[in-house]
């Protein structure tokens, strides 16, 4: 009985502390908006930035051989439609980095509905998109003011009834 009371008091104290904390949350700022740190659950440990202290946030300097259309074609080519995807209408905003060796990594996906509100899709579909981007070759890393850089970029995929649309 006594130990239960202690436990209750402890729980109360902890919840009080966490309440206080949540009211005084220090805003955490990244060095740059869009910096994507390594997440062991999502990221390939083999993917490395050449200089992690200086990753460019200049999308225009990263290109795909053959341009956007070649990229769209490559994505559609690797996309395997499954009937279970057909309930999904919306957009995938795929953010990722291309390191100075032209390798993709740190892929993050925002799933939005047709009104650009946050939504969900099946985990399988999400994984599939992730895998497609992991395996895309033909990237050209950023060269800025004559120097090689790692850099971040993103790509928008529009899905209509589970099928990728050309935009």
């Amino acid at each position, binding site marked *: 009985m006594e130990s239960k009371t202690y436990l209750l008091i402890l729980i109360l104290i902890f919840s009080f502390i966490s309440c206080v904390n949540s009211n005084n949350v220090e805003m955490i700022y990244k*060095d740059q908006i869009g910096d994507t740190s390594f997440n062991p659950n999502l990221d390939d440990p083999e993917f490395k930035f050449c200089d992690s202290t200086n990753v460019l946030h200049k999308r225009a300097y990263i290109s795909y051989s053959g341009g956007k259309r070649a990229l769209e074609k490559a994505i559609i080519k690797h996309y395997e439609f499954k009937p279970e995807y057909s309930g999904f209408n919306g957009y995938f*905003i795929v953010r990722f980095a291309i390191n100075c060796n032209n390798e993709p990594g740190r892929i993050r996906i925002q799933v939005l509905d047709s009104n650009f509100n946050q939504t969900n899709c099946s985990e399988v579909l999400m994984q599939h998109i992730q895998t497609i981007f992991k395996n895309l070759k033909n990237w050209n890393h950023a060269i800025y003011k004559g120097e090689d850089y790692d850099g971040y970029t*993103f790509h928008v995929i529009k899905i209509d009834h589970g099928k990728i649309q050309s935009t």
Partner: protein
Amino acid sequence: MRTLLILLTSSLFSYAQPNCYIYAENSQERKACELSYKAIQYPQGSKASQKLFDQAIAIAPEFAWAYYEKSVPYFKRGLLREGLDILNKAIKIDPKEYLCYRAYWYWQYKNYNLCIEDLETYYKLPKAYVQFTPGGDKDMRIILGLAYAKTNQYKKGIEIISNCIINYKSKDDIGLTDYHSLGILYVLDKQYSKAIATLKKQLTINEDMADTNYFLGIALKEKLNLVEAKKQFTKALSKYRETNRFININAGFKVYLLDIENEIAALSQIN
């Protein structure tokens, strides 16, 4: 002159920056305004700038410009939802100033329906004024026309772009890519004679886009003028290969090297 103006406007100021002196000295708005100016001295998206925008917003939550400026790097870096959440606050305070900016990002992120919705709302606002893409390359009415075309409403798009061009106050206001955009829509709507006339007009204003010759070639081909069509495709190819060729930033309908090469190959029998 227009090119110079575009270069100046795009490098000197983005969406109308407020004059902090219009706010009373020691007012919350004046403080927020000054903090926001301080923020834009730091690299866009940097920690220092973000902190200053948040301070500005905390002091004057009704100061729209701070939200707008804060949202910019989110949009540029693929954090669309986060960007919208911030920008929407600016739009709520001052829709006339910021609706077009949201429409522009809807366009960039390929949601043409939302883009159309915002721009139609904007142009119905009392005293809506002429607004441009953030880079200054196009009047937002051209973007609206192109967005209609993206949703296969070519006639609506043609009407909007034609009206935009007619309603310019002076001929000098005609954009470097306006007739090009209109010409493409005529091609897509299969009005090839009008497409030819419009794209030729484009060439008198700015002849440096390979894409113009490509679409002109397509219209001529449809009119069975194959010799002229091939000439235009060949011109397109040589312009495409120029290192400093003119890039139509918000083209909407972009031409790739392969498109031009395919057309030339298909007309290989024509001299």
